[in-house]
């Protein structure tokens, strides 16, 4: 077994004399001194000076030489640069492992992403990029970027103000970035790292989760919960509807034909011996007065328990009006009103029905008084029916609303997130 070779070489900066490390000898082309910012030609044994720094040196968040384990591989930070598209800026770390080659750690201020150069060409169909069977949507339009700050070592000739044109293609969790500068085009695929993943690997402070300005390839934090809650909600809604259908049958317990005198005194009828067996139930009291025309009937119900004399009161209005005017003939009014009573205890009941029928006289045009519909002065026949059971539509609707309110909230949050994610913040500076 041969002794391990050192992978780091100590060199002296030609400009300032400071000690700098060369970590990827053989691949490194540009070496920027971390003390004075001078760019040295790493391919020249004399470390010829290429450029002097004109920006103040500052240390990157993750220092050169720091090592961290990301997704099972140990990486060492060998280079750092800051780029900007004219508006926002971001940082890129060049990571190196002698057995794995290079990787990029992108820091957009919020999230970290890990990128690798592609060794295969993505295909472009129908406005979407495709790689390894996954589709990527174009994000915004292509934009120009320039390097603002650089330190460490790189396998290409990097310099401040070096410009490249970038086009991004995104899907939740991944991005494909294409960079061109006239003579070459490079493709990189980036994976967004989980919250806290890069921070844990390189010993940084954990960043707070927030989603006000999502990165273009950020997966929606609402998506999984939305899918789960939609499934649960749909199962619950179907269960609710099944319960409603099963419990929705109603049976007729009483029926009577009564009369209401038009413009006469109120008239009381009693429907006797309505038996309600078993448990509490809903009752539907329907009054059918189809012969009504331009008149109405006040109906006061009083359901009295024969034993306890407990009574349940309700009111219904049967009405119907019609006529014709400049727009043609019209009619309105419900002549067969139905009312529901809830939770009537079992027992023996009498239903007292007080009816008062009245003619309606239009207050506007006396010329169009419609009176004397055939048999207008004869009493109005009203059929009263009592049904036990049945389903309250209001209950079903309220139940469904309550059940689906959580998935609806998540849906709203998810779409809001996706909209913020896919809209470019900066204005397009050309095209």
């Amino acid at each position, binding site marked *: 077994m041969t002794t*391990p070779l050192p992978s780091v070489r100590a060199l002296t900066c030609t400009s300032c004399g400071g000690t700098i490390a060369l970590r990827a*000898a053989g691949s490194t082309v540009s070496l920027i001194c971390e003390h004075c910012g001078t760019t040295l030609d790493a*391919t020249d044994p004399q470390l010829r000076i290429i450029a002097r720094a004109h920006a103040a040196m500052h240390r990157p968040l993750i220092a050169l030489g720091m090592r961290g384990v990301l997704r099972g591989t140990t990486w060492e930070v060998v280079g750092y640069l800051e780029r900007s598209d004219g508006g926002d800026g971001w940082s890129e770390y060049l990571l190196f492992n002698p057995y794995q080659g290079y990787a990029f750690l992108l820091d957009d201020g919020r999230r970290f992403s890990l990128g690798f150069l592609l060794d295969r060409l993505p295909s472009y169909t129908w406005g979407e990029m495709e790689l390894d069977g996954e589709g990527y949507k174009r994000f915004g339009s292509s934009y120009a970027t320039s390097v603002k700050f650089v330190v460490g070592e790189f396998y290409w000739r990097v310099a401040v103000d070096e410009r490249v044109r970038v086009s991004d293609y995104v899907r939740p969790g991944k991005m494909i970035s294409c960079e061109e500068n006239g003579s070459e085009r490079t493709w990189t695929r980036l994976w967004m790292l989980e919250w806290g993943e890069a921070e844990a690997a390189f010993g940084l402070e954990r960043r707070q989760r927030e989603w006000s300005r999502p990165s273009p390839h950020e997966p929606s934090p609402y998506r999984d919960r939305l899918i789960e809650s939609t499934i649960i909600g749909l199962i619950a809604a179907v269960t609710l509807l099944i319960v409603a259908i099963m419990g929705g049958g109603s049976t007729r317990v009483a029926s009577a034909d009564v009369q209401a005198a038009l413009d006469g005194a109120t008239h009381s009828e009693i429907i006797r011996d309505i038996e309600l067996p078993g448990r509490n139930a809903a009752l539907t009291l329907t009054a059918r007065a189809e012969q009504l025309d331009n008149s109405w009937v006040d109906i006061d119900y009083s359901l009295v328990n024969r034993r306890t004399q407990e009574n349940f009161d309700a009111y219904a209005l049967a009405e119907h009006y019609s006529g014709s005017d400049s727009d043609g003939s019209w009619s309105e009014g419900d002549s067969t009103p139905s009312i529901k009573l809830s939770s009537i205890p079992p027992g023996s009941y009498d239903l007292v029905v007080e009816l008062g029928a009245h003619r309606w006289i239009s207050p506007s045009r006396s010329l169009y008084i419609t009176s004397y519909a055939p048999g207008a002065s004869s009493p109005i026949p009203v059929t009263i029916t009592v049904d036990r059971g049945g389903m309250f539509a209001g209950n079903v609707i309220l139940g469904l609303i309550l059940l689906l309110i959580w998935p609806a909230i998540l849906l709203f949050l998810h779409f809001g997130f996706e909209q913020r994610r896919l809209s470019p913040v900066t204005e397009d500076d050309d095209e």
Partner: protein
Amino acid sequence: MLEANCPNCGAEIRFRSADLPVKVCAYCRSSVVREGESLKAVGRIAEVPEDVSPLQIGVRGRDGALGFELVGRVRWRWTDGGWNEWLMLFDDGSIGWLGEAMGRYMLLRQIAHSGFRTDMVRKLRDGHPVTVGTEATIDGIQYRVTDVKEATCAGGEGELPYSAPLGLTIASVDLMAADGHCASAQKDQGVGEVSVYTGRYVSLADLRASGLRAFEGWPMPQFAA
């Protein structure tokens, strides 16, 4: 297998295969060419600069079922960097090249024909400029040119199929396809010969490489342990 002594310095020297007639003497760095039974020292080969490459002469691996050993290396330089080409001697006696650049590896084998059916290769042969992004189909696979550069030989070691003198200049074109396949075409600017290689991008794990160089502080990866 031929065991002999370096005609220049007398050190022990070994030739493994008749297809690899050139060997760089590890001691005096002479390029020793074998012609039949006789050996001739032909110039000096520049020492390969120190680098942090995990590969070294003697590394073994497998391309699918076929095993290989790295027996030689040529280093190339261009204006903005350099790369290694490692000579692979397969267990069946055939040879290939493992190109190492920017931490990525291209496993390449020379194609059996001239490649002149492909427009791009003819352009290279005739000295016309080849642009990045040009499409080229070689043996049924569609590639795009990703890189065009002029490079010079910057050194060599081990056993080689040809002498690698300092100053040998080539025009090199790299191509990439949609599924990991890659290709490389090189024109020897002196002689005018064009060679075309096709293959694919591989990782050291894909090759199940063993015998890699150990570096201080870097644990040897699982596949090579």
